[in-house]
């Protein structure tokens, strides 16, 4: 915690200097950093982050953090790239964990390793969950510090389980069981019209993320260098076939695309008895579900694995050493147990370090609301998120083709081969 003391000490001296009336010296000591952040899921995340920044400001009078809300993950990325190209890069940004290769290609970010000066800091850096760090490293260096991280989790409607004659406290644990449960949970009226679907895997927005769960973590969709994809692997095709079968063969899920944003609402309205969505929706579901619900591991996760998601801190190039130090200090402060706990409590994101879960705040939270710990416990089986060069373009290839398969325009095999062909054509130049 040397850095902490140094900055804090400097701040304290500076504060004294101000009191002594040495205003000119004070103005020079102030470091200003600009910090972009997105918020991708519902809840009061932006507000809560504002609170954290204000708290930081109160503790570090020598540093001014200008927090800029930049919109969705994509918007924030666009904004960061544009600003940097215009010579106006922020010092710090929270951007999608999967944007690492894009940021490297644009040469915008610096390795955290270069900023680290002490063993204590090294220890801090090593203290994050390994599953989250999977998207932080490339070429042996660490670039991203996990912040608003998440995994998919399963939400189930306990009342619907009871009505279907299922044990409300025992959710499905394998993909085969999921189908079985789904059949019991799918209700039809006298005319054969479905009044409640067994489950809902959202398929517009984050399609590849859901697919990665069905494929399993043992087969990443990309290689370590981010220049090759495995879309046409038989196991990927098989996973997509399973997804398609849920609606076409087993008829336990509505057909066509199911909107990501409307998924929690579909759950509240009793349209679907089980939903699979980001743990970032936890607070939203807790506040709005009009029935008793459970939160659990993704079915089959112990064999399959699940993909992490969300965003990391990145420190941008082109700033002064003081700014870099201040940026790192802010990141360290925010990821410290108490702050990480506050953030988790407000948003439902997973606190990215084990030590945060040891705080009284989170202990009490997890005891009072056990679902909060599900995503964390699931991390043991989690893998990194799909990540390549030209991420959004390649993502569009697989997402479009998942959509094509789920809406019956292509077979899963055709779809994945098409995605692979397009990805190959694009990523060739990075090999």
């Amino acid at each position, binding site marked *: 915690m040397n850095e902490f003391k140094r900055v804090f000490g400097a701040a304290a001296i500076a504060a004294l200097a101000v009191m002594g009336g040495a205003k000119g010296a004070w103005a020079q000591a102030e470091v200003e950093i600009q910090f972009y952040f997105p918020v991708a899921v519902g809840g009061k995340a932006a507000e809560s982050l504002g609170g954290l920044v204000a708290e930081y400001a109160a503790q570090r009078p020598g540093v001014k953090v200008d927090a800029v809300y930049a919109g969705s993950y994509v918007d924030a990325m*666009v904004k960061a790239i544009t600003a940097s190209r215009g010579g106006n890069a922020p010092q710090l940004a929270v951007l999608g964990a999967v944007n690492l290769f894009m940021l490297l290609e644009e040469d915008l970010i610096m390795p955290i390793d270069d900023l680290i000066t002490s063993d204590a800091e090294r220890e801090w850096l090593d203290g994050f969950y390994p599953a989250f760090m999977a998207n932080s490293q490339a070429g042996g260096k660490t670039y991203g510090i996990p912040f608003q991280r998440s995994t998919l989790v399963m939400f189930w409607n306990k009342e619907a389980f009871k009505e279907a004659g299922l044990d409300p406290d025992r959710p499905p644990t394998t993909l085969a069981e999921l189908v079985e449960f789904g059949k019991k949970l799918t209700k039809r009226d006298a005319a054969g019209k*479905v009044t409640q679907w067994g489950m809902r895997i959202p398929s517009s927005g984050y399609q590849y993320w859901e697919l990665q769960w069905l494929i399993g973590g043992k087969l990443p969709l990309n290689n370590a260098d981010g220049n090759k994809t495995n879309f046409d692997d038989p196991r990927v095709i098989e996973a997509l076939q399973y997804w398609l079968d849920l609606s076409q063969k087993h008829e336990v899920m509505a*057909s066509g695309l*199911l909107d990501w944003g*409307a998924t929690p609402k579909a759950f509240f*309205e009793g349209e679907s008895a089980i939903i699979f969505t980001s743990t970032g929706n936890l607070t939203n579901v807790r506040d709005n579900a009009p029935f008793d619900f459970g939160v659990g591991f993704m079915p089959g996760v112990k064999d399959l694995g699940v993909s992490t998601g969300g965003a990391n801190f990145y420190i941008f190039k082109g700033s002064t050493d003081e700014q870099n130090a201040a940026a790192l200090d802010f990141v360290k402060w925010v990821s410290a147990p108490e702050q990480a706990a506050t953030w988790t409590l407000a948003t439902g994101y997973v606190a990215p370090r084990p030590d945060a879960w040891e705080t009284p705040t989170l202990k009490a939270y997890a005891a009072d609301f056990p679902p909060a710990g599900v995503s964390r416990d699931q991390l043991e089986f989690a893998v990194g998120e799909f990540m390549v060069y030209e991420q*959004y373009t390649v993502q569009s290839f697989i997402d479009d083709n998942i*959509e094509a398969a789920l809406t019956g325009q292509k077979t899963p095999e055709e779809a994945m081969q098409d995605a692979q062909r397009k990805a190959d054509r694009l990523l060739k130049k990075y090999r």
Partner: protein
Amino acid sequence: MPANRGYDDVGRSELTDTPRNPFASSKARFPGLSRFRPRREAVYGWLLLLPALVLLFAFTHYPGLITIWRSFFSTARGARPSKFIGLDNYVTLLEDDIFWQVLWNNFFYALGTIPTSIALAIVMALWVNRKLAGRGFLRLFYFAPTMLPLVAVANIWMFFYTPSFGFFDQLLGIFGLSGPNWLGDPDTALLSVIIVAIWKEAGFFMIFYLAALQAISPQLEEAAMLEGASRWYFFRRITFPLLMPTTLFVLVNAVINSFRLVDHIIVMTGGGPNNASALLLFYIFENAFRFWDTAYGATLTVVLLLLMALFGIGQFLLLDRKVHYQ
């Protein structure tokens, strides 16, 4: 707003619907300057024009031309600078199945929105031009969609289209039916956004027709009534031809809008499923501002410019004449 007419000096534009100006002639000079040499007048003319021209060139003509130039270069990415690649972008374009799909989508979108919204606009205008009960409210109802930001209403429409607990499905549920997955099915997604566009535009076009109808003398209708003409006959032979300049104006607007408005696509479908509802401008936006492939974005823009040019020429050759002689 015909792009090809009205540039001659005689005030012959039928759009203004005013008699020829007897004082104007093709050699007219600014009267206050008639004692000066023409050169002086030209200087004033150019000076007055200059501010507008600068902006116009900077944001319409220059970007239009430079887009073509840029379509021959690759996109700069990180360490890789942009370089001349000839027709490579166009080869990519021709091989890009999404591009062709988007082009067809846009064609069907135009076909779906333009005639329907114009027809509805005429019907609306005829109705609110008559003394119907609650005419003021009807005008508001028809016109309201135009006043609302498309972004805002697109979100409301998403509720209408949501399967099972959405508005349409609840409505159909009363009759024991269930609707399609409107936005989530490639067969209905484009139709769904077309409906929103029609809803948004018909009221806007209605205002133009209403203004035109109010300019038509009521005596015409009385005379026709006395002659025993049917309403349909009167509409077909009198009203509709008189509305022709309006129709031309509205048509041009409608065509441009079918290429220009993609707000609802961004909010409602993101172009999906599998690009079933993506339009050309949306695809340009996606490529340039989501995928950061600005060179390909420029290449796609060239196609859009080409379409607009074709439309301009087509309008000159066909519609212009029709309006003139009817």
